[in-house]
């Protein structure tokens, strides 16, 4: 079978880390044009989705995971004998779990017990140890429990600390931003992404603004603190990440959970893209921006695919759509 033109050489080099590994395939994700779910958008406005589900671990979080772990190795904060520890409601945990496994470091993750069963199983399959926090306290509960575990035995762990580690936005400054710039031939006018740790939008936004200060950086967030948009944060009522600088955003738009779910169903049926709920939320915001323009190139980041949520409340809607068929 012919190999992809961009694939690194197959021959193994010396040393355990010198050969080709899944880590070499983080990033360089496809950008696809949304041709159908663009209600009321002028023909001069193009909307592109960046499919981060194509990363080896299945989400955008592979980028931050790789950058944070490699930074830990470079700075000597992660050395043999240490365990990688972090709080996560899912995708970062999966990224750290597979990257830790690939590099031979044990991984311990703190997640709220109501994360999806797929996530629990995937990280367990990579050999990570999982500690569950109170589901009623959401991801902030996991953050607090993780701090406690670290404080009890600080020398045992390397905590990437995705909420405060500059390597998280740096991953996007060095990869996501340049990819989008290249993939759109510098024509991008708006970048839309959801707010979780904010690493994606901070790093990508900084790079794009440096290339063209007129590029608009738009964040999608849950409209309320009580929501079901896995991975996204309602900043006003959450522990605010240290890497988050709201003044670098041009606009922040709230999205209702129900609308995001409905958008996920539409993107599946009308675009052939099975995406997660945070992608649905981001696309609603992208469409809102698109309708105000007569021309432009909007890039919206889709953090992961929807098959990671088949056991969750998202499925309830898919199931109903299925039943409604004649």
């Amino acid at each position, binding site marked *: 079978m012919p190999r992809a033109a961009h694939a690194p050489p197959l021959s193994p080099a010396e040393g355990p880390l010198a050969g080709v590994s899944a880590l070499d395939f983080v990033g360089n994700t496809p950008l696809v044009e949304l041709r159908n779910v663009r209600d009321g958008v002028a023909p001069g406005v193009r909307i592109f989705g960046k499919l981060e589900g194509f990363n080896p671990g299945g989400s955008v979080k592979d980028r931050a995971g790789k950058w944070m772990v490699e930074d830990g190795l470079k700075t000597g904060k992660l050395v043999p004998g240490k365990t990688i520890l972090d709080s996560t409601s899912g995708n970062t945990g999966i990224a750290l779990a597979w990257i830790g496994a690939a590099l031979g470091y044990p991984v311990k993750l703190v997640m709220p017990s*109501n994360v999806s069963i797929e996530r629990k199983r995937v990280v367990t399959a990579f050999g990570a140890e999982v500690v569950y926090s109170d589901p009623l306290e959401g991801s902030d509960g996991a953050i607090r429990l993780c701090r406690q575990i670290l404080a009890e035995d600080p020398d045992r762990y390397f905590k990437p600390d995705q909420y405060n580690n500059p390597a998280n936005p740096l991953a996007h400054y060095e990869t996501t931003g340049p990819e989008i710039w290249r993939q759109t031939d510098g024509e991008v006018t708006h970048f839309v992404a959801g707010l979780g740790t904010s690493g994606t939008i901070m790093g990508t936004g900084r790079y794009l603004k440096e290339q063209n200060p007129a590029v608009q950086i738009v964040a999608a967030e849950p409209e309320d603190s009580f929501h079901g948009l896995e991975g996204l944060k309602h900043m006003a009522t959450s522990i605010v990440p240290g890497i988050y600088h709201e003044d670098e955003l041009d606009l922040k738009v709230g999205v209702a959970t129900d609308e995001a779910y409905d958008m996920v169903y539409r993107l599946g049926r009308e675009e052939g893209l099975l995406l997660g709920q945070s992608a649905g939320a981001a696309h609603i915001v992208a469409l809102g921006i698109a309708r105000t323009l007569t021309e432009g190139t909007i890039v919206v980041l889709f953090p992961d695919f929807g098959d990671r949520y088949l056991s969750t*409340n998202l499925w309830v809607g898919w199931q109903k759509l299925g039943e409604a068929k004649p």
Partner: protein
Amino acid sequence: MVQVRVPTPLRKYTAGSGAVEAEGSSVAALVSDLDRRYPGIKERICDESGQVRRFVNIFVNGEDIRFLNQLDTPLKAGDELSIVPAIAGGR
């Protein structure tokens, strides 16, 4: 009385309390009683048609009411009901 566990984002209705008590012979009746005690909380849990919002999970003694009898799931004194949003926040 039924023990009700309240998630952080809804504690603004319960004066910050994560565990409160309410009465009702079914989940629907309990949610209504909860709203009498803590006005405004019901519309966060249920939509305009009275159904539990898609992203909200209600557990009775650890069992998801979607797999029991939905809002008609019976309750008795001493039961524990938990209101749990689908996961949120920062991946």
